[in-house]
């Protein structure tokens, strides 16, 4: 049989993904065009520096004023603007005196979406270090980007006495968080009361009387049943399904290949999950039965560190130690596109606001009360630079920031301008 020399990639729908790597770089990958856009790196933020190695990242991709939180190896947590990479706030995670940040890196990071609606000038972060120090803090994001020591309303607690935390996730409604790791059974916490509400029990010894030590490497909530069901992957290549309302032992577990499960992601409104392991195998599984639906085949050779599901499009992204960002179709399990990003990648997130940028920047207008003075200035500076790529996201931001300052007349003018731009954009995309 003749071997095909090229794997044809049909290209992916318009999307925007951000990847974080071991040199602390953030790379923006965009695919444009309606049918079969080729994804490529459009921007690179930051300078290569090994001490700034990214450990975890989280995005709040709301329509107005999106934010991106990045935890670095040096103990810094940076909050950026995911549209242009401007640093908003950077805070140090050195909570305890004497503990070096390198020893106690951040294992889990989550940027809350909900709380920011109430007070637009601050955001809430949940961080968890490998030693189990979890803390929730709200950060003022309107001030100048510097070491802001004033992180108000800090709630902190200890998840575990010993062991290392390796995974932490927050459920969809952002009321509960789960933690797990090496030597730590999965436990669920109520974030409002800071109380542990549930702990898993280790699975029983097997028929030979051998007990496998607890070592969770990844976990995710199944989004259909809010916080009660979740999936955890272990170091000895097992995937467990837990139901907190049923029992403390896994209600279902199955094996997948022979290397540790390094990433798990759930499909919203469905029972399918995606699992990636240490030798680069990515598969889709129906969690009700533990039935393997199929593998994603595409020359993926390095450990998968992160899987992200696009909120609207039927696309998942995987990245890992082989330095590739791969975009897959969910239905056909076909590789849509692969981008070589040169470094060991730690995390990937989707910017879901990107897809509708061409269509409706006007929709984002009514909420114009959020003004960042600093941002405003920067936007104006950036405007002068002819940057083709940024056109669409800029348009939206600009409109938001300007409109607040200027009076109604200019607003009308702007809307005209905007509509022009919109049409121009659509033309661009058609061609």
């Amino acid at each position: 049989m003749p071997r095909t020399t090229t794997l044809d990639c049909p290209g992916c729908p318009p999307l925007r993904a951000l990847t974080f790597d071991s040199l602390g770089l953030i790379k923006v990958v965009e695919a444009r065009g309606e049918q079969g856009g080729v994804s490529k790196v459009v921007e690179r933020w930051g300078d290569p520096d090994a001490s700034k190695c990214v450990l975890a990242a989280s995005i709040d991709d709301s329509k107005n004023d999106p934010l991106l939180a990045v935890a670095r190896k040096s103990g810094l947590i940076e909050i950026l603007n995911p549209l242009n990479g401007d640093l908003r706030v950077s805070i140090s995670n050195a909570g305890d005196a004497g503990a070096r940040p390198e020893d106690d890196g951040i294992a889990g990071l989550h940027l809350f979406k909900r709380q920011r609606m109430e007070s637009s000038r601050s955001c809430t972060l949940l961080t968890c270090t490998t030693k189990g120090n979890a803390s929730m803090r709200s950060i003022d994001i309107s001030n100048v980007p510097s070491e802001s020591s004033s992180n108000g309303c800090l709630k902190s607690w200890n998840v575990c006495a010993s062991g290392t935390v390796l995974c932490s996730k927050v459920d969809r409604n952002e009321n509960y968080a789960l933690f797990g790791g090496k030597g730590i059974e999965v436990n669920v916490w109520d974030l409002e009361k800071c109380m542990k509400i549930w702990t898993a029990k280790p699975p029983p010894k097997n028929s030979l009387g051998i007990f496998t030590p607890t070592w969770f490497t990844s976990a995710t909530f199944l989004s259909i049943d809010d916080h009660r069901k979740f999936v955890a992957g272990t170091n000895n290549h097992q995937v467990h399904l837990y139901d907190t309302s049923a029992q403390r032992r896994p209600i279902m577990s199955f094996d997948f290949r022979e290397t540790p499960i390094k990433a798990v992601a759930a499909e919203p409104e469905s029972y399918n999950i995606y699992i990636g392991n240490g030798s680069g195998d990515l598969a889709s599984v129906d969690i009700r039965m533990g039935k393997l639906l199929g593998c994603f085949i595409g020359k993926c050779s390095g450990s998968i560190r992160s899987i992200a599901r696009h909120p609207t499009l039927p696309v998942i992204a995987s990245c890992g130690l082989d330095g590739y960002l791969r975009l897959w179709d969910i239905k056909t399990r076909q590789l849509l596109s692969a981008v070589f990003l040169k470094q060991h990648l730690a995390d990937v997130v989707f910017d879901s606001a990107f897809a509708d940028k061409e269509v409706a920047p006007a929709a984002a207008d009514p909420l114009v009360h959020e003004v960042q003075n600093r941002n405003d200035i920067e936007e104006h500076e950036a405007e002068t630079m002819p940057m083709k790529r940024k056109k669409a996201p800029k348009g939206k931001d600009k409109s938001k920031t300007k409109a607040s300052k200027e009076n109604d007349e200019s607003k009308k003018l702007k809307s005209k301008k905007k509509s022009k731009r919109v049409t121009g954009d659509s033309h661009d995309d058609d061609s």
Partner: protein
Amino acid sequence: MAGKRKKSESEEINEGEKENNKNNENSNKKMKKEILPSMIKNKEKRSAVHAKLKHEKKVEKRKKLKARDAAEKRALELGEEPPPRMTPRTIENTREPDETVCRPDDDELFAGNDADEFSSILKQESTPKILITTCRFNSTRGPAFISELLTVIPNSHYYKRGTYDLKKIVEYAKNKDFTSLIVVHANRREPDALLIIGLPDGPTAHFKLSKLVLRKDIKNHGNPTGHLPELVLNNFTTRLGHRVGRLIQALFPQSPEFRGRRVVTFHNQRDFIFFRHHRYIFETKEIKGSESKGKKAKDAKSERVTQEKVIARLQECGPQFTLKLISLQHGTFDTKGGEFEWVHKPEMDTSRRRFFL
């Protein structure tokens, strides 16, 4: 049945005709009327026809070569540029384009180099110290190979394996400040795999080892001196290759003693890494008049005065072997919980012109 066969035969003849048309030779025209050698059923006859065809081809090729040489010579005599030589198409130079090939203008590559596990050794901030051990069972060629490895790699120490776990050995070597650990694995008393582990947290490379020839089996072999060797790493082009190259580079001291005229080569070709170990010497040699006649015209201006030429002579001093990368693991040796940076998978073999190193 018969009709079918006839049909297939006629097809074959048609194919033969096409080929003959391509060749466009008189002798082959005669052949066209006849049949291809593969269609002859009598073996003796078939082999005779085949031999004849082959001989014809050979003669033709020789004629072509002669004509090309003559044309070149004539061009030289006339003082013209000789016609450019054709480069043969090989698997290497028709390699599939690979986006992971390192580029010299890539700043991320150099930043990554500074940050990786080997940078302290390669910047000569620390000296490499190597621990060599074997698998549990080890005899005949294994120890002989290790004793030769000990002469090749400076500052390497052999430790008996005993019945220790490899993870324990890794811990021990970390505590003793070793920078690398090499495990020679043998199967049926024949070394067949090599494990190179960077310490304390460097990657683990698993190689298949084949074509091992020990020093005493190499004809006219030399004996290496105790000088620090020079290191030649060829063709490690991609990101993965670069990393493997650096792993190998970190086994050797970074300050070669050129007086020793001793060179260790790791040559990568089609993902196979060939290891050779040589001594070299520079000799001045008088060029005889008759020998240099052909080159005279070329060298006339430069070499006429001295008639002497410096040539390098090589003497191989073993061992020689071939490595093929099976997997590259992130972190030290861990079969159960290890994360791989690269593993070979069958689905990656889509073409024989695709290489990873």
